[in-house]
């Protein structure tokens, strides 16, 4: 077939097609690159940076979820430089994260925890102030706890992709930036139709279903490597 792009990933020769990203080609070849903001089939966001890889000749690492493959690329997905960088990134997310895993409803299915475990991260080396936002629990379909948000923006993109007036947007800058509802109003009872698009893909405990009386928490076991 024409239109094939030849490249190497971790020394192995692989092929991709025009328009494919490094991440897609890697996954096709059974190579696991961690991602936090990427959502399959939606436009890449590029915010979390966890998917960075080393591309020969590039000054910096590149985001694999949004960088298209090119002929002759030589890529390392798990070099010491890449791993060291990913560790710092997760530690930075944990630095401002509330120490609330024990009582978090999503603890067992939390992607942030899984990625931290995969990278063998314990207590983060870095500290920052924490965000304290009141839990928004007025809505019958969704509980929002922005103190736990890692700002991946998946919910923003997922909601937008539904086509209606999006529920969420970004506001403020730097460390204070925040995914907001409306003009930074707490989620009310009216907010949205019960589509769950955002809850299902939120990688942290920031968005979850309200627990109904007598209901147990989703008790899927957390798989920790090693």
């Amino acid at each position, binding site marked *: 077939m024409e239109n094939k792009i030849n490249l190497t990933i971790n020394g192995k020769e692989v092929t991709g097609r025009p328009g494919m990203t490094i991440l897609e080609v890697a996954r096709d070849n059974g190579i696991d690159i961690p991602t936090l903001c990427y959502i399959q089939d939606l436009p890449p966001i590029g915010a979390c*940076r966890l998917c960075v890889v080393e591309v020969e000749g590039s000054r910096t690492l590149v985001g694999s979820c949004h960088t*298209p493959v090119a002929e002759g690329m030589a890529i390392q997905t798990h070099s010491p430089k890449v791993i*060291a960088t990913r560790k*710092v990134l997760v530690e930075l*997310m944990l*630095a401002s994260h509330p120490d609330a895993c024990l009582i978090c409803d999503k603890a067992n299915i939390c992607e942030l925890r899984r990625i931290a475990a995969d990278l063998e991260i314990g207590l983060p080396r870095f500290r920052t102030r924490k965000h304290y936002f009141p839990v928004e629990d007025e809505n019958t379909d969704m509980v929002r706890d922005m103190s736990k948000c890692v700002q991946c923006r998946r919910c923003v993109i997922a909601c937008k992709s539904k086509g209606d007036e999006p529920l969420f947007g970004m506001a403020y800058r*730097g*460390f204070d930036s925040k995914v907001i509802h409306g003009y930074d109003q707490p989620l009310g009872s009216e907010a949205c139709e019960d589509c769950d698009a955002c809850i299902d893909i939120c990688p942290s405990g920031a968005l979850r279903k309200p627990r109904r009386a007598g209901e147990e928490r989703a008790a899927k076991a957390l798989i920790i490597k090693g």
Partner: protein
Amino acid sequence: MPQKRVVLKNCEVIDPKRIDSHLESGGFKALSKARGEMTPEQITNEVKASGLRGRGGAGFPCGIKWDGARTAPGANKYVICNADEGEVGTFKDRYILEKDPFTLIEGILIAGQAIGAKQGYIYLRAEYHYLLDHLQSAIDQAKQKGFLNGFSLEIREGVGAYICGEESALMDSIEGKRGEARYRPPFPTTSGLWGQPTIINNVETLMNIPPIILNGADWFSQMGTERSKGTKVFSVSGDVARPGVYEIVLGSPLRELVEELAMAKDVKMVQIGGATGRILPYDKLDTPLAFEAVLGAGAVTVYNESRDVIDIVHRTMEFLAEESCGKCTPCRQGTEVMAEVLDKFHKGEGSLKELQNLEALSSAMMLSSLCGLGQAAPNAVMDSLQYFRNDYESRVAK
């Protein structure tokens, strides 16, 4: 070596309010030449051959950028002049906008001719609002004289965000969105403003275009070093007797600018390139000002022996933490961590462990941040740790 005025040739010479005064001193001749005697390809080739590199900080070869947009498919191409001048300690673009708006307009029009654009924008820093009428009048006068020739040139004002000087955030801002960096590729030359091929250049870069077209690439490339051709306009401030805007040939030593022209005394260190720039101690004052060594957008802030390094680095980091757009993890979280650590050192409550962690953090920020802000944010910390480590170690909590 004295100053060499190429970019600033007309400043304080012509009357910046009257286009006739500019025409009398040879204004718009380069535009006539570009439109009358040259093909777009010849224009981009001339700019390429001159070796001109971007003056907004990153130093990307101007001709290569133009050629990318010239050959990119697209019906509506755009030229953007970056007059956001947000870097701490820079005021050279302001001086140019005030003293010689016509040469800038000429440069923009030549750029439009080169890439086949019919529309251009000047993105003006919010704090330069007072220049709006002045610039608009210059555009109107050029239009009246027929120089715009169907090209539409509009001014767009920023609202005070440092990140909106970054090219992709700037385009978001013009599009009416929240200004945040975009990932690249695609690059603006193929998919920029409203997804169309776009070139974006700093004010000073565009000021170099008319003289290059008029005098030729050879004339231009005789000035400067191997990889840094021409002159550079510097904004010098801080502990100097004569702060101001100076233009010198690239490759000149920093000492000349700081001690001879600006007449600084008892220099302790110099910050070159603003908040994301480099820090050099006094004994590195013979470093040449060139892309090969240090340069940035030409902000030169001088600190004398009475200044506290940690205080300066801390405030630099507080600025960057405040101005980070917040999109990517390393910059949003990393600048905050750094600002908090530096605050502790500032108060004499630092720890050696945190100092070590700063190095790992810096490396991750440089390698993984989405745009130049996060990538260059650790510069001041890393440089000061290299040259002034004692200042840190003496602030470790006892």
